[in-house]
């Protein structure tokens, strides 16, 4: 891919948080040298998967410019997003990249009607010049997610289910006609029977509306269901990335393996799958500070050098793995 064929590029970005006071606090590298690209010639759903504390949400917030990167660059259509200045630049960026948040019940002010947000978006981004013009725009966006203006009009957030609000949230994000949607755990707080409605919307956006989706989740099952490519994060680093069939069909990194194995499958026959017991860490946060591989403390295949040397990114079997096991033995 040449640079101009990239919609979004994360060029080895890091984010260090200072916890505590300015002089005295500790450092926590929440995102550690992370890089990936989304292609622009063809829309795709790219999943960033990882457990809580893996840094995936921080990546989302860095892309959305909620705070600046400590190192590296985030390029949107080839230009550095830290260079965006002023209200006009921000509005232009927001018309291309829109978010969907995790908690549907917090996405909209509980004291305001939902439809206000959609109409405001249409007005602020110049999609419509008055309320009357905005209504059909809003209706179109809601139809894309399987709702309609009449269903949502006059409603407060608490009058809809989490699944419905989340779809309203997607509809709102679609109004400025963005090219990329950053969806941070969009279904984790939605009931199981309603989840697929949202996930299917993302599929449809990719296939029919030419919108790319960065899908951030800890749920490997939905990730497998909708995404084209996936990156697995652990303690701020991407440990394995490739097409979803390769990475989840045949995981190579020991962490991805354990992760996949631990996902409960809704099939009673495979109950015995959990016979092996696994090592759990008591003080998970300490893994951030580890030299070498962050997974060394729990890894069943751990070697001496894993504790000392940070593993390189190795390309093998159609994916990139950050693990000493797959190092070419030329050394």
């Amino acid at each position, binding site marked *: 891919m040449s640079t101009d064929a990239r919609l979004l590029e994360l060029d080895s970005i890091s984010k260090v948080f200072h916890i505590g006071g300015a002089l005295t606090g500790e450092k926590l590298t929440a995102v550690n040298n992370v890089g990936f690209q989304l292609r622009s010639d063809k829309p795709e759903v790219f999943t960033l998967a990882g457990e809580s504390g893996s840094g995936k949400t921080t990546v989302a917030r860095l892309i959305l410019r909620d705070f600046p990167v400590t190192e590296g660059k985030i390029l949107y259509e080839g230009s550095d997003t830290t260079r965006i200045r002023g209200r006009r630049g921000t509005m232009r960026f927001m018309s291309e990249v829109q978010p969907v948040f995790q908690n549907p019940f917090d*996405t*909209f002010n509980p*004291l305001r009607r939902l439809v206000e*947000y959609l109409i405001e978006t249409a007005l602020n981004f110049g999609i419509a010049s008055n309320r009357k013009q905005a209504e059909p725009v809003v209706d179109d966006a809601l139809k894309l997610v399987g709702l309609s203006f009449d269903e949502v009009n006059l409603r407060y957030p608490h009058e809809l289910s989490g699944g419905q609000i989340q779809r309203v949230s997607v509809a709102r994000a679609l109004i400025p006609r963005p090219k990329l949607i950053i969806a941070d755990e969009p279904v984790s707080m939605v009931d199981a029977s309603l989840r697929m409605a949202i996930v299917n919307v993302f599929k449809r956006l990719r296939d029919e509306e030419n919108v790319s989706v960065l899908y951030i989740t800890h749920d490997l099952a939905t990730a497998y269901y909708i995404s084209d490519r996936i990156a697995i994060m652990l303690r701020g680093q991407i440990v394995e990335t490739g097409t979803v069939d390769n990475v989840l069909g045949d995981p190579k990194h020991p962490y991805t393996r354990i992760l996949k194995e631990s996902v409960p499958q809704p099939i009673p026959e495979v109950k015995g799958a959990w016979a092996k017991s696994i090592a759990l860490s008591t003080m998970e946060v300490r893994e951030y500070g580890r030299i070498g591989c962050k997974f060394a403390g729990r890894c069943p295949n751990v070697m001496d050098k894993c504790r000392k040397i940070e593993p390189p990114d190795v390309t093998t079997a159609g994916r990139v793995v950050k693990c000493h096991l797959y190092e070419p033995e030329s050394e």
Partner: protein
Amino acid sequence: MLKVIRDLLRYDGRFRVAFIFLLATFIMSAISYVSPQDPGRTFQVPLDRSPSLQYPFGTNSRGQDVFWWMTFAVRNSLYLGLITAAVSRVIAIFVGLTAGYRGGYVDRILMSVNDSFVVMPVLPLLILLSFLFRGRMGLTGLGVLMGLFGWPWDARLIRSQVLSLKERSFTRTAQYCGAKDFHITIFEHLPFVLPIVFATTINNMIWSIGMEVTLGVLGLSNVTLPTIGTTIYWANAHQAMVAGIWWWLMAPVVVSVVMFLGLYLLSQSVNEYIDPRTRLRRIGA
């Protein structure tokens, strides 16, 4: 508005008490405008009469009808409370919203100043100031002065509320709707900050009226002006308790209890009513 008052009167006992007390207070301050007695003059009625039909609050050793004197006192105290509340509200809301919404160094600097004011005893400073400006400061001046000292606690409350609102997703949603900061503050945050603003306004009035009483008792406010504080000052100066003229002290006590309690209960009940959680319950969430 009328419906709100009707709802509160029907379902909240505290509001009923507050309503009656504050009504009495307002009527009291209103009738000062038709007072037959000039509070600036002395020896207009017989001295030291105990409460009777003719003199409901009795008369004092300066030859004044305590009832009419108190109508002016209530009016002046309310006026002072409103001035202070207005001045300190402007500062508190500005500092609270700025520190909360901007964050970073602005926040840290504002808050370290703010916290210092919170723990600093204001009274000695006020005593110092009013001592130096004694006689040259009217009620308005005093109100503004107290307003300059009465904001830190409330600014801190508003800031902490804004800080938590800023972290809520709906603030970020509004940003991605393309809303301007001002719009977000007014439409997204204000409904949540409103209960605090309302409660602190009333608490601030209570505080400033109380402070004036303090300064008045010490003889540091303009003692020719009838206020609750100067009433106690004059009673003390004439040794009312020793002389057995207890009604002279009882009048400011009763009036201030009614006023303070009315204001406090009003803030409690209205606050619960406009609390977003109660409001959500009312719209059926």
